[in-house]
């Protein structure tokens, strides 16, 4: 399987303002002062090897949208945040309007930041495309209808030309989609949210966002440890610091890098991907949180246990399992 991040931000899309672009330029130009680059390849190597990560990268600003490529002709996508627009554009470029495709969506929940990309998903406007929206919520269509009706949006949901089907799932019950076994788990979030575990050919990916893990909830932790057990990759909501999560932002429905490492260690997960980044944080802060999480993993790892690989999501990141 391959995972591609189309949107990694929590809560609200963000764009990089000019002053942050200029700050990156300053770092790059200072580092390049007095240097000569004989080719574009030499310049690329300098950028890759010598510039600090936050100067040569950006986390991007789209809200949650993750593609799980199961090597099937059908597509699998978790959530419809603003990152869905770019995914849809890439589909139009790849297939055009004449080759109908099947898109299988798995909805963590129906809050705005997780559905806002759908009105801007070009394949939804193309006859012949099949769009299956899997959800454990009782009436997901109502949220889409509300979003695409007056006065919120000019194109009504019923005007979309693709064949759109809402598929009811229930937590714990496995289904097979695009060749992968998919299981959902109820999570702690206002109005409920659901995590999904995808398994195919001995590989496994868990998508678990908008989920609050209270340190004192031992039974809840045990459920998640079982859900994460031996997963190759866990995509985990780490929007807040632990201090925020147990104080000011308690019951806001999100979690921390500390909880991520603890649960993944207990479940013998191989790779943790930090996700649903705080929209108020810039690239430098998110990079710092990533480095701190790597360090925390080192500090907390039992002697002899295999290391948990810790990455951080950014728009455009691809991970092969």
């Amino acid at each position: 399987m391959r995972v591609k991040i189309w949107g990694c931000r929590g809560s609200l899309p963000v764009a990089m303002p000019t002053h942050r672009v200029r700050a990156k330029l300053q770092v790059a130009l200072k580092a390049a002062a007095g240097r000569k680059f004989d080719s574009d390849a030499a310049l690329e190597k300098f950028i890759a090897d010598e510039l600090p990560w936050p100067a040569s990268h950006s986390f991007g600003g789209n809200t949650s949208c993750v593609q799980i490529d199961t090597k099937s002709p059908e597509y699998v996508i978790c959530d419809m945040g603003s990152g869905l627009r770019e995914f849809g554009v890439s589909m139009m470029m790849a297939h055009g309007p004449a080759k109908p495709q099947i898109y299988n969506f798995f909805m963590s929940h129906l809050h705005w930041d997780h559905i806002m990309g759908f009105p801007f998903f070009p394949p939804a406007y193309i006859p012949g495309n099949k769009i299956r929206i899997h959800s454990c919520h009782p009436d997901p269509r109502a949220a889409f209808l509300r979003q695409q009706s007056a006065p919120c949006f000019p194109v009504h949901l019923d005007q979309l030309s693709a064949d759109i089907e809402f598929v009811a799932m229930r937590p714990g019950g496995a289904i097979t989609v695009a060749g992968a076994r998919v299981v959902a788990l109820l999570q702690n979030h206002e109005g409920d949210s659901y995590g999904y575990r995808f398994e195919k050919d001995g590989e496994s990916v868990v998508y678990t966002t908008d989920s609050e893990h209270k340190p004192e909830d031992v039974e809840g932790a045990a459920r998640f440890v079982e859900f994460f057990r031996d997963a190759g990759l866990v995509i985990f909501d780490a929007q807040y610091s632990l201090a925020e999560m147990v104080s000011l932002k308690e019951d806001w429905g999100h979690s921390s890098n500390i909880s991520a490492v603890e649960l993944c260690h207990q479940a013998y997960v191989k790779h943790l991907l930090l996700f649903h980044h705080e929209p108020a944080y810039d690239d430098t802060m998110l990079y710092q949180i990533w480095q701190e999480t790597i360090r925390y993993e080192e500090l907390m790892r039992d002697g002899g246990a295999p290391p948990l690989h810790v990455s951080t999501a950014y728009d455009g990141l691809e991970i092969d399992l």
Partner: protein
Amino acid sequence: MNIETEAQGDAVVLKPLGRIDQNTAPSFQESLLAALDAGKDCAVALDMSAVDFLSSIGLRALMVAHKRCQTNGAKLVLFALTPVVREVFSISRFDLVLRCFDARDPALASLTA
């Protein structure tokens, strides 16, 4: 959890010994809250020099104690954090919430200031 207790003027010094994790955090929290509730405007200094491990539930116990101080007027400070626990405080941002000192004397002095 094994916790040494010592009266120091108007303050109490609590010294937890060992790990504060899933197994020990409940009794650690209970002891800490009891000290903060022992009288009017209690002052508690936590000697962290013998705590070699602190998981999220241990950090949460400290946050519960911090919130108790905000409601009952008690004071809580920490001192002599081990290097590992100091790093955990920094990564979890608890260093921005709790008052931490390198040594015992300034910690105790801050409780009477």
